[in-house]
Structures are given as C-alpha cells and as structure tokens.
C-alpha cells in the first residue's frame, strides 16, 4: 500500500476518534466474554466474526498509529500496519457486523461494537472499498434531499394511487386526503420506506385512529449510516428533521425500520419534537381506544422477533408484546429474549449486499430460536428483519410465515 494512502487512512481514522471511541479502543481486556455472543460467529465460526476478533482488527491498527507502545514496541499488543490484507480484514469485520450490540450486553465494560465498526467503515470509504451498493443508495438519498422539489410531483402521483388502496381498505367514500402531504401543524409526520406497503398499512391505521397526520417526502431508511459515512448519514437524517421543523409537527413517527428509528430517537441530539416508532403509536391507539383490533385473530402459534434497534437499542420491548398477545391465540417468547435476543443477521445494511449465503449461515441461531418455539408465524417490526427472516426461512426450508406487525394490525382492524 502506498505511503500516501496509508497517510489518508490514518487521517480518516484520527477524524473518527471521538470521546467514547478513545476509551472503547483502550479498555478491552480481551476477557473473551463476548467471543460467542455474535450470531455471525455462531453460524460461521471464524475468529473475525467474534466481537473481540472484529474489534481487534481496528484496535491493532489504532495501537500501531495512535499509541506510543505501537510505535516503540509493536509486538507488545500485536500492533498492525495498514496494508491491503488488513483492509480485507477491515471489510470482513465491518460488513459481518449488523450493529445489533448484543455483544455489548455481555461485555463487562459495555464496549459499543457498532460504534467501533464506524471506524472500520470509514477506513473502507477512504480506501474506496466500501460496498458500492450502500454508497450508491446513500448518494441517491442525499441527491433526493438536495433536489426534493424535482421529486415531489412524481411522489404525489404515486401517493394518489396508494390513497385509492387505503380507501378500499377503510371502506371510505373518497380517497381524497387519506394520505396527506406537506400539511403544516399536524400532530404526526410519518416517515415510511420506498415500498408501498410501508405507507398503505400505517395510513390505514392513522385514518382509523382519526389522526391528524402527514406523510414525509423522504424515506426513513438511512443508507449513509449503513455505509458508515457520517456526513451523509447526518444529511439524510436531517432531511426528515428539517421537514418536521418546517411543518411544525409535534411528533415524528418512524416506519418499521429499527435503524431509521434509532437515529432520530437517540443519535441526533435534542430535537424539538417527539420521535416514536410506529409500534409505539399503534400501542398508544389501542390503549386509548382509538383503534380496535380483532382479538386472537391469528390462530397459528406465534412468536415475536425483537428487532435489535427497536428493542435492545431502542427500548421498545413491551408495546409489541402487548399487541401480539392481543392478536395471537398462542404467543410464545423466544429464548433468549429481549436484550439477549439473537440478531437475525440482516441489520447494518447487510440485507442490501450480495451475501445471501453468509446471511443464511449467520441466521442459524435465529432459525434455532424460532424452531424451539414451535411457531408457525414470526412477527417483527423492521423491514430488514422481515427480509432476513424470509432469507432464513427459504435457506432452511422452514415452514413459517414472516409478518410485519403494522401489516398484521392493519389487516385485523375492527373498522
């Protein structure tokens, strides 16, 4: 690797070193408690798929260039010089990690693996070896943010078609205004995804609850975050934040997408509005009696998969369980569950990459968890999880249905 490239990589590493990363890089004792806590390692038992193995790839580079011992005594901590081989390891470490932070729960120091992997992803961006798919999707989202006016008319015509679908579902007389857009002072700004289902089902629920809401022009998913590009991630998130401020809404509600929820909820600092997941809002409507669902409508044995960014990293544990318990006649918890639940293996942008074989293998713990419940239906509330659970289903020929919670609620509303 050329010296100039090494210098660029060192500079980009240095720019990522914020307060928490400074101590996360220093305090690991390699106690090994995290060793088998990653689903990827469970499916493909390679050391680089262990949390400590991943972290050491980054940490050894850190030692080499940012610690006196790495300079004077490189063997002391196995300090590693940057080269093409190390960059291959950096890729493997970064894009086998979904950022689920299950290892963090087991780490006696609470080292945040997701955050450590932002360094790896930044190095890959600087090295121009980051996954092209994610970089292009992030660029597309940034471009949409820059020239939203050019997109608006096309988007409006798509939404008009979706309004008809919502009208039919609700049995309403007119489709007019069922998916409002650009509405000032609404209670809720809803951010969906690019798929029609991510807008239609929430729209049915909002209308059933007689909510004063409006739809965002932007999709909630943040490919800048998945690619590890903090500037683009910030820009993409601010598209919705600025829209919410412009429209003066009270609450931003995020579609079933764990990362899209976690970013504005926790990672963007204080915001002048509340941020909620669609799951929390559905739960609120049921509790307030604003919507009614058909109780025990699902007769199959059902289990709930906690999306990592919604549960462990978002704190939304109880609400979906209460909703699922109402919908299902036989709801069975997975084991382990809640903060110890296994990641399905689809997060962190991994479902967007050409890595299906790896994801089937890394989905093994999830497959075994589902099998153990005897469930015929797995309900979840994250688009990535739905896609990955379906990959696991077909990869292992599982006799299960994978359902989105919002969709299931929308289909079982008492109207």
């Amino acid at each position, binding site marked *: 690797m050329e010296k100039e490239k090494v210098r660029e990589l060192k500079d980009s590493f240095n720019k990522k070193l914020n307060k928490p990363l400074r101590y996360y890089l220093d305090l690991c004792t390699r106690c090994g408690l995290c060793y088998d806590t990653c689903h990827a390692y469970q499916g493909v038992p390679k050391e680089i798929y262990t949390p400590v193995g991943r972290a050491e790839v980054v940490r050894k580079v850190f030692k080499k260039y940012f610690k006196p011992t790495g300079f004077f005594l490189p063997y*002391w901590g196995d300090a590693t010089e940057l080269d093409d081989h190390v960059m291959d390891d950096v890729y493997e470490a970064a894009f086998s990690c979904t950022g689920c932070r299950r290892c963090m729960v087991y780490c006696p*120091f609470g080292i945040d693996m997701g955050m450590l992997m932002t360094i790896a992803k930044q190095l890959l961006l600087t090295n121009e070896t980051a996954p092209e798919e994610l970089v292009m999707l992030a660029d597309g989202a940034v471009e949409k943010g820059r020239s939203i006016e050019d997109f608006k008319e096309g988007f409006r015509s798509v939404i008009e078609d979706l309004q008809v679908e919502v009208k039919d579902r609700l049995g309403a007389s007119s489709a007019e205004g069922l998916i409002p857009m650009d509405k000032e002072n609404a209670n809720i700004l809803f951010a969906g995804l690019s798929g029609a289902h991510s807008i239609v089902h929430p729209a049915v629920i909002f209308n059933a609850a007689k909510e004063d809401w409006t739809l965002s022009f932007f999709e909630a998913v943040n490919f800048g975050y998945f690619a590890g590009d903090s500037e683009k991630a910030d820009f993409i998130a601010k598209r919705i934040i600025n829209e919410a401020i412009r429209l003066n809404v009270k609450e931003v509600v995020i579609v079933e997408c764990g990362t899209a929820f976690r970013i504005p909820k926790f990672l963007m600092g204080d915001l002048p509005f509340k941020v909620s997941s669609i799951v929390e809002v559905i739960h609120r409507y049921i509790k307030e009696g604003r919507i009614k669902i058909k109780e025990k409508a699902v007769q199959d044995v059902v289990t709930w998969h906690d999306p990592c960014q919604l549960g462990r990293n978002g704190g939304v544990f109880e609400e979906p369980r209460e909703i699922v318990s109402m919908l299902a006649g036989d709801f069975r918890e997975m084991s382990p569950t809640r903060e110890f639940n296994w990641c399905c293996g689809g997060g962190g942008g991994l479902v967007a990459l050409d890595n299906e074989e790896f994801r089937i293998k890394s989905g093994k713990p999830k497959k075994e968890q589902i099998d153990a419940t005897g469930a015929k239906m797995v309900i979840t509330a994250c688009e990535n999880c739905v896609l990955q659970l379906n990959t696991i289903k077909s990869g292992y020929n599982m006799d299960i249905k994978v359902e989105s919670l919002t969709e299931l609620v929308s289909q079982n509303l008492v109207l």
Partner: protein
Amino acid sequence: MMWDSVSYFILVPMVYMAFAALIIGLIYKLLLVYFSPGMKGITPVFPQKGPKLLGIITDAFFLPTTFKKQKIFWLMILIFHIAFVLLFVGHLELIAEFKWIQVVPHQVFLGAGAIGIVLMITTLYFLFRRFGHPYRRISVPEDYIVLLVLFFCIMFGSILHLADRYSDYGSVLHVGVQSYRSYLWGLFTFQPDLSYLISETSHFTILVLHVLFANIFLIMFPFTKMVHSVFTFLAHNRKRM
C-alpha cells in the same frame, strides 16, 4: 557496590519515576478523552433499570452479565478486585498509621497473608485461562506480560510479609512494619532514607524485587488495558440514560 546502586535506583528514583508515569500517564489518557470531539446524541442499551448512578455502579462493580455467562470467572474477578483493594489499604498502613483502618484492630498487614495468596491464585487463574480455547487466540503479549508482572510483584510481596510474620527470624525481630514505614514515609516526604531498611529488614533482596515489579506495574498501568479501571465508568455511563 554495583548491587547497592541498582537497589538504590529501584527503591528510590524508580519509585518516583513509576508514580510520575502513573499520574502523568493517566492524566494524559483522560485529557485525550476530554479534548476529543464529543458525540451528539446518546447510545443507551435497554432495558434501563433503576437510577443511572446505581446502574453504573452495579455494572462496573458487580458485572451482572458476567455472572450470567461465566460464574467461576465472575467469582475470580470479584475476589481479585476485592483483594486488590484490600492490598492497597494494607499498603497505606505501611506508610503511616491510619486509625480508620484499625477500626478492627489487627497486626499490619490486613488479612495475615491471605490476601496475597488469594491474589496469586486469582492472577494465576487469569493467566492459565488465557492458555485455553478460545482465549489463547485472542490474547496478545501484553495480556500475559501484565499478569506475569503482577504475579511476581504479589509473590515477592507475599514472601516478604509471610516470612516476616511467620518465620522465626521475622517473629523474633518484628522489624518489618517500622522499617517499611521509615522507608515509605521518607519517600512520601521526599526525604528518602534507606539506612534503617537495609540494616534491619530481613529480606532486603526480596524487597527490591517486589518494588521493582511494583514499579514496572505502575509504569505500565496507563499504557495498557489496566486503564479499564478508570474507563469502565465512562463506558458504563455511555450505555445508561
């Protein structure tokens, strides 16, 4: 003559150097964190139970998920750290007399030698644990060196104490505590005096080795994974709301 110079260096200038390295090193590490860019937002892990401070203390001192995952390792960690604190308190009594430590009257040092033995056992446990799968694969030289330095430091310290307390030679003379107080108080007040230590202490060579390994340990402290003792609180603070 040569040995006199070496032992003097280890017992006096090197001790000052070790403490300077420890203090300056830790301050340097903390300043690095302090002056690094902040991060907007928070990164909690759920569920969040109880008040934040209580959560940090529980996570840092009682390691609940370690207990859940590896009970023997958890027990060893707890015993090791408690013994380490008691060892530190015991060394305070070798500098001067502290009434608050003598609330329960005891002969210096605390534990009558048991603490050193417990520390040796736990340190060896941590060391041998690294030889097994998968820990050997994730260990780096630093992991072994730190434990070896600590083990030798504790071993020589224990020999000093056990011999002084239980051997005929030590029990007749009973000079240990006064000798050490004269030495350590002299260091503390920047008036080092080794004359009493050299003439009266029964195991001078062992003492020099004990101090040598203690010095190395202190010098290494801020530049190795031992900083977990400080940074663990910052990390646990980050995952709480």
